[in-house]
């Protein structure tokens, strides 16, 4: 009877999983090394390793530990958070086009971040530890707007209607942000422009510390619910039949994914498409099981954003292209490709 679980096929599948995860880890490691030794101050691979193990001079220490590492960590964490958030949103809405950026959740978060910062003279005067909290309210506001506007009493949340409403909400919130910009001091104005372009601005350790607890708690909370996510992909009735409290689980998962995306973009700029692309590639590589898709999405998201940020800050040195723009250059065509394939 148990042979179904121990055959040649099962071994093949296990090998595939191991190869997917180890290739992702290796890729991240390579980009990580490259990211650490590229920048305005040249730092060779050997010098990077030497500095990492505590043998660098003070200048090398400063560059690596105070400038590059926090930014690298933020890029990895934000990318992973956006990917997991997108993965959850796609799962609960059974819609492969759902993404915190496209749905306007990150814009809502950004709007509240800007409001928060506009109370202070500049971003540096504002405490980074309150940023995720404000962002959360903004993200929830956007999610609530989408829900109210797109919900149909008879049909529930129709995927296409949800996406279109989300795009409209995002556009509206963006417009609000632009209006707000005009009333700001020059320094704050610069900040909003940077936010909109998706620059990873939280590139010091306090931002890492401010976001890390959110990332850890929400990721564990979501991962604990992988089975609920799996059952939800069978549709509401089937999920209920399998004993899932559909409304409750859906609400909890929506809240967690909104909180994750919102807190992520509160330390980076408004970065889109990561939550769309990463889960999609993860599903292709590893199948539909969320116990594997969630971690694979997280790794892919981190890899994608770190790659985009590294590319953006090295390609036209000493100037830089913001990570959000690099991601959009890759992500927008991918979104159109998915849209074309989803026959609507």
């Amino acid at each position, binding site marked *: *009877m148990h042979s179904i679980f121990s055959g040649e096929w099962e071994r093949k599948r296990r090998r595939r999983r191991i190869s997917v995860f180890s290739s992702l880890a290796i890729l991240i490691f390579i980009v990580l090394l490259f990211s650490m030794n590229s920048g305005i101050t040249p730092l060779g691979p050997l010098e990077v390793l030497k500095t990492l193990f505590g043998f660098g001079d003070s200048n090398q220490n400063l560059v690596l530990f105070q400038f590059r590492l926090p930014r690298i960590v933020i890029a990895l964490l934000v990318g992973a958070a956006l990917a997991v958030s997108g993965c959850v949103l796609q799962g609960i809405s059974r819609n492969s086009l759902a993404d915190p950026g496209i749905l306007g959740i990150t814009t809502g978060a950004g709007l509240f971040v800007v409001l928060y910062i506009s109370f202070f003279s500049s971003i540096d005067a504002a405490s980074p530890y309150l940023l995720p909290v404000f962002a959360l309210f903004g993200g929830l506001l956007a999610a609530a707007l989408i829900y109210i506007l797109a919900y149909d*009493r008879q049909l529930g949340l129709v995927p296409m209607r949800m996406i279109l409403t989300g795009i409209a909400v995002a556009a509206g919130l963006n417009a609000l942000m632009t209006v707000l910009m005009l009333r700001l001091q020059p320094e704050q104005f610069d900040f909003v422009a940077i936010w909109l372009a998706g620059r990873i601005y939280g590139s010091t350790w306090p931002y890492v510390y401010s976001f890390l607890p959110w990332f850890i708690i929400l990721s564990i909370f979501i991962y604990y619910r992988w089975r609920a996510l799996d059952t939800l992909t069978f549709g509401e009735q089937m999920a209920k039949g399998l004993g899932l409290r559909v409304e409750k689980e859906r609400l909890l998962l929506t809240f967690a994914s909104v909180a994750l995306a919102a807190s992520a973009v509160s330390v980076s700029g408004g970065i889109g498409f990561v939550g769309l692309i990463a889960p999609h590639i993860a599903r292709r590589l590893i199948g539909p099981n969320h116990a594997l898709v969630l971690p694979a999405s997280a790794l892919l998201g981190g890899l994608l954003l770190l790659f985009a940020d590294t590319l953006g800050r090295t390609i036209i040195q000493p100037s830089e292209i913001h990570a959000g723009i690099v991601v959009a250059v890759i992500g927008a065509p991918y979104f159109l490709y998915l849209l074309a394939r989803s026959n609507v």
Partner: protein
Amino acid sequence: MIETDQLHIGYDQQTIVNDLNIEIPSGKITALVGANGSGKSTILKALSRLMKPSKGIVYLNGSSIHSQKTKELAKQMAILPQNPEAPQGLTVTELVTYGRAPHQRGFGSLKAHDKEMIGWAIEITGMREFANRPIDHLSGGQRQRAWIAMALAQETETLFLDEPTTFLDMAHQMEVLNILEKLNVQEHRTIVMVVHDLNHASRYAHHIVAIKHGNVVKTGTPHEVMEAGIIEKVFGIKSDIIKDPRSGMPLCLPYNLCEEQAASPIFGS
């Protein structure tokens, strides 16, 4: 045994089922029959707690299902909705594994008993050779059997199926019904299904509930329900009832629409 007490079911303001009192006997196959839009699927959903009745109570073995935890109910009743959809690339074994969901918690992995039930469900539905195939590569009949295997892995006494044979060709219809019959005979499962084909209901069910406009017209054995007068009332057709030379069960041979039905077709009623 499943009983209902004055069940009212409706969407928004529209009432679909009014004052329904039915009994589903344990260990038997019960077929819900009726025309399109008669409310038979709605009744199945209410019995299996997929839909909340606006009034009235559904009892499972004497206790109300509305006050029980949905996860506990999932260990007592499994439901196969109409046209279920699986995510792309999911294999039969993976699909059937989800049938164990109500028996699992949190991060937990499969225990020996879970694996045993999954293996058994795949075996009894004849899906062993397809166990590692993706669902989307299977034929309609194989796919339906895979879903039935998933429901079986849930290890429940009662099984609800909403039109399990629709969209299947004759051989595959029979295959599915034979599996259900086997489950009933060998495992004494209570099976409640919505069926379109009256003659299938007659051949496979012990108990038939004939429904029109959300009301029960007649319940009983196939011999009691399969009468020309009742068929005319429920489906709006004139028919001859003959005896199946093999099984001895009644067979319905429709020959015409009733006069008022001929004038105003029942579609969408």
